[in-house]
């Protein structure tokens, strides 16, 4: 295939106008010794039809979608109203770039403004940005922001925060003289408040907790934030499963200073991990240290309402090395999908979505933990994930279930060596009662037979 629109005649005329005889001359500034002397070694080009067949063949090697899966852990299967696909694939949304020219980008800008509003409403904050890359790097940006605000060297991070998020934070701060201390978890699977109190002191810039946490347990943001405040530290609330915000109180109303999260649950398919949608919000007081693009409302010369990218003196294209973040291109199209999703579900739909998740997951938890050889690991309240402990090593059980086309969840021993027999089960509104029952029956049978 080729996507060139010039005919040979066009090319000839254009070269003539430029005053050269061949396209090769256009590259005369590139010294001969670094020019490629041969063709790139790439597969022969494919036509559209061949290309589709080629990828269909590769796609079939993915057998995941043939399985009944209960995987979550930072990526959640949720229903997506069809209008999200239908509208977001319009050229006018998918084919512009960053709205640098507001007069021809009002659609994108108003969508960002609505997205910011929705994120503020969900998180209980004054301001939100136009998006960040994902939940993990968003959490890292929140830590960098807290460090700039507090100028203190230490950050406390709960071990119940998603292990990948912790790894990304660690990677981001490594070269900046910030020290990380991890805070243990309690028997209930919540952040261990005694350990937190012990580690909090006047060197602490921020405390990072996640709710629902990596074990699916709902954390007490209020208590965390109160403790943080008592040491003049900021409370960073991470939300990896944003569907929970349909029923759980907004972190901002529970005392969080910065909320950062993953918006994949809002109309973005699992997509093997990306593109996803980082979001962040905070109080107006922190605006000068807030990272990322922001849309704001203004008027045009005729007094009509319009929207522009604003407060850009925080950003790299103006402030260069002193910018609040290096982010430039973000995840605008994912934010658009989230906006369509949230506005389509609306007030009642969001509540219902969260309600169904919490009900179905609790139904599954109760059903599964009644099986002989299966134990509910943590007693804390859950949203749509929970940890089960098996009496036997789960790898054999997992293999047997796999033969039945069932992926029971995520094994935790890689992330938490102290939990070798545990796995994390995720149940959302996409799982039917019948499927949950099938998991329970199969697990019971496999345990009995092993």
């Amino acid at each position: 295939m080729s996507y060139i629109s010039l005919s040979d005649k066009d090319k000839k005329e254009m070269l003539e106008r430029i005053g050269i005889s061949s396209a090769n001359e256009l590259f005369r500034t590139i010294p001969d010794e670094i020019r490629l002397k041969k063709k790139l070694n790439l597969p022969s080009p494919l036509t559209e039809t061949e290309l589709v067949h080629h990828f269909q063949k590769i796609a079939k090697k993915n057998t995941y979608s043939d399985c009944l899966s209960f995987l979550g852990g930072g990526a959640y299967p949720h229903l997506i109203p069809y209008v999200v696909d239908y509208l977001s694939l319009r050229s006018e949304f998918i084919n512009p770039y960053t709205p640098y020219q507001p007069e021809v980008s009002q659609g994108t800008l108003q969508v960002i403004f609505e997205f910011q509003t929705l994120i503020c409403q969900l998180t209980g904050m004054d301001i939100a940005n136009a998006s960040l890359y994902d939940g993990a790097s968003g959490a890292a940006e929140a830590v960098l922001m807290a460090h700039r605000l507090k100028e203190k060297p230490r950050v406390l991070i709960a071990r119940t925060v998603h292990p990948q998020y912790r790894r990304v934070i660690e990677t981001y701060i490594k070269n900046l003289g910030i020290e990380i201390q991890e805070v243990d978890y309690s028997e209930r699977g919540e952040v261990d408040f005694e350990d937190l109190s012990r580690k909090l002191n006047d060197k602490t810039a921020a405390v990072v907790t996640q709710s629902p946490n990596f074990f699916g347990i709902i954390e007490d943001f209020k208590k965390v934030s109160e403790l943080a405040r008592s040491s003049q530290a900021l409370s960073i609330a991470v939300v990896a499963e944003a569907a929970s915000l349909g029923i759980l109180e907004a972190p901002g109303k529970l005392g969080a200073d910065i909320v950062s999260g993953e918006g994949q649950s809002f109309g973005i398919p699992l997509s093997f991990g990306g593109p996803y949608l980082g979001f962040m919000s905070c109080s107006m007081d922190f605006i000068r240290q807030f990272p990322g693009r922001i849309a704001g409302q203004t008027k045009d010369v005729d007094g009509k309402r319009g929207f522009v990218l604003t407060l850009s003196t925080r950003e790299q294209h103006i402030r260069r090395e002193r910018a609040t973040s290096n982010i430039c291109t973000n995840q605008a199209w994912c934010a658009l999908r989230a906006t369509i999703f949230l506005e389509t579900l609306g007030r009642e739909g969001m509540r219902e979505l969260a309600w169904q998740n919490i009900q179905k997951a609790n139904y599954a938890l109760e059903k599964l933990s009644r099986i002989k050889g299966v134990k509910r690991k943590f007693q804390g309240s859950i949203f749509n994930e929970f940890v089960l402990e098996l009496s036997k090593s789960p790898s054999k059980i997992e293999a047997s279930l796999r033969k039945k086309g069932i992926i029971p969840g995520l094994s935790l021993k890689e992330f938490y060596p102290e939990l070798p027999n545990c796995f994390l089960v995720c149940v959302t509104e996409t799982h039917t009662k019948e499927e949950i029952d099938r998991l329970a029956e199969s697990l019971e049978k496999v345990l009995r037979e092993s």
Partner: protein
Amino acid sequence: MIREPLIFEISAEGKRAFRLPKLDVPAKEEIIKNLPLRREVEGFPQVSEVEVVRHFLRLSRTNFCVDEGFYPLGSCTMKYSPKINEKIASLFQFLYAHPAASADFVQGNLEILKTAEELLAEVTGMDAFSLQPSAGAQGELLGMMLIRACLEERGNPRKIVLIPDSAHGTNPSSAHICGYSVREIKSNEAGTIDLSSLAQSMNDDVAALMITNPNTLGVFEADMRKIAEIVHSKGGLVYMDGANLNALVGICRPGDMGVDVLHLNLHKTFSTPHGGGGPGAGPVGVKRIMEPYLPLPVVERKENRYLLNFKRPKSIGRVRSFYGNYLVIIKALAYILSLGAEGLREVAEVAVLNSNYIRKSLEEDYHLKYKTPTLHECVFSDKFQKVHGVQNIDIAKRLIDFGVHPPTMSFPLIVPGALMTEPTETESKRDLEIFIEAMKTIAKEAKGNPGILKSAPHNSYVRRLDETTAARNPILRWSEEKKAG
């Protein structure tokens, strides 16, 4: 055109656009007892499906996009995004694959990642790739982290990163987040790096040079090999910002010019849609010496099976969750496979031809600060028009009246009043002529009727917006109290 309100302003109690299937397990109120709950998300809209569709359709019609017309936004490579690649990326086995599934279930996805890494390595002459970064700036940050890890192992991470004054703003910002201080190097009269001043700046404290090639003026750094030698001879490393790779594909390769690490922008050179500001993808390519430090996990092929290696003790860690913007990577791979070697070379040839055609056609009407030959883009300025009181922003806004998207104005900082123009290879001669004619008309108007430029655009959904007030008195969200109109 109907002025579309905010969705919150058309919301009314009880309307719904979507219903979930009925809950099929017994609901138990007691499980939510003692939880920190909310009754509802306060302020969330309530609208019908028709209202949602009309809302977004009307909003969409106020956007300009590549499918509509010429979009010469310099350094952004606004080329046509092939439609079929969207369809390929939405095959359900890709779309609904969970990223935590064990390798056995996602062999197809891992094959795609590995193949994309290998083909990008071939195109750039690098030895290995990480596809994890979500965009160019995150690629830069990862690249800097790799440099730091490599130098640390050699005994000293060093302190300074050298960056030309023509660089994009993300370069200094990324270096800074990696703990480096930035020293700017001045461009010479040709708009390129001056070898002697580079040699003077280069010492044992300098970790790396961050260079964009071709640079933001569209000029190829012809001394690239010598530049790399100077940096390497003092123990530093060379980072290349690959934002402008569109000019080079199939012509020459960064890996053959002394570059140690680079990032690409798949949404630029490799045609994936820009999405109104992302998602992009910013893969990082490295030479063998940097490979041990690549982020986790790394995809490996063993006897035609693919697996994920998480056990790499020298790895810098992770810059985001999972494996990057996977669906974007599929689209870029589909693009490479549909073009092949000759198709990619033609991309560079025609991109450079189109740009030089524009340059030649407008060089008498618009000032070119640097006369050096350019590749895929050229940076005009408003110097000729300034004498009539017309600035680059006026030219840009007037272009909107002609159905053309304005060029980039915010950089390079070394050209005051810049109009950075990048046509890309997908434009027809007719579309180039529309732009050239518009620019010529505007040049005439600047002399005879500057008022029409000052008040442009004239026919857009909104006219010039008050950005000063937006920043001084920020309204960053809708709220019940501030029902502005």
